[in-house]
């Protein structure tokens, strides 16, 4: 049995992306989240961070993109839940891995994680995909 060509146990294409040095600035403008921990190196260090960190919701958007690119478009993503852990950093490669856990009522349930340098920064994430007809 498959749902839109997906079957249980199948690994979706890995998504690899390296956010460039100014990505957080562009994402701040695009999203409206100007928290200085994402755009001001000095401020980030003052509050005990190693430097500017990625927006969690940008990282979640990469997890979402990994799903929609694998499942045939934006309308296929019905649900996505994630837990954020640790710190995402600019200029380090992010890898999103996804595996179809089961098919249920015409929906593919996918386990997915995002990691940087082998550390999961999005974990216990679950997506529901219902690819078009």
């Amino acid at each position: 049995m498959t749902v839109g060509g997906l079957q249980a146990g199948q690994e979706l294409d890995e998504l690899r992306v390296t956010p460039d040095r100014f990505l957080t600035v562009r994402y701040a403008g695009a999203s409206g989240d100007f928290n200085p921990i994402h755009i001001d190196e000095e401020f980030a260090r003052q509050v005990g961070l190693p430097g500017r960190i990625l927006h969690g919701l940008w990282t979640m958007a990469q997890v979402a993109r990994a799903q929609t690119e694998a499942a045939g478009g934006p309308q296929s993503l019905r649900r996505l839940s994630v837990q954020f852990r640790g710190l995402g950093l600019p200029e380090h490669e992010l890898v999103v891995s996804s595996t179809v856990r089961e098919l249920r009522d015409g929906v593919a349930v996918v386990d997915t994680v995002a990691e940087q340098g082998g550390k999961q920064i999005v974990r216990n994430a679950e997506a529901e995909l219902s690819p078009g007809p």
Partner: protein
Amino acid sequence: MPVSAEAVGRTFPPALYAVGREKVREYAHAVGETNPLHLDPEAARAAGFDDVVAPPMFVVVYSAPAMAPAVLSPEVGINLALMVHGAQEFVWGRPVVAGDEITTEVQVTDITERDGKGFYVFESRSTAQDGERVCTGTWTNIVRGV
């Protein structure tokens, strides 16, 4: 300062967001989308949409005018300097396209304290001008050292 759960159940005034084509494109570029449905009105129309399609996570843009006052509300009492984003869930309905007008309402659904941390949970409900629910969000913010 102990966590107060008094704001649980509180609903904030709905906020309206008008989805614009260039904002969708700006957001799509920032998150690395290359699907022409998000970038090219002709491609979107050819696929049966009225205009460019917002990526699903564009919900963070159209719900922001409703979310910000809730998270910043003195009644909720979050110390922003100590806040981290703990977890997030979105459930989507029909795709949002440029030209849609989305109204979002936010409610505080849970406030608890565990291990010296405050857990603040908000639900956002976003509805398009045609009355269709386009997204429901569950936002969990964690405040350290409460």
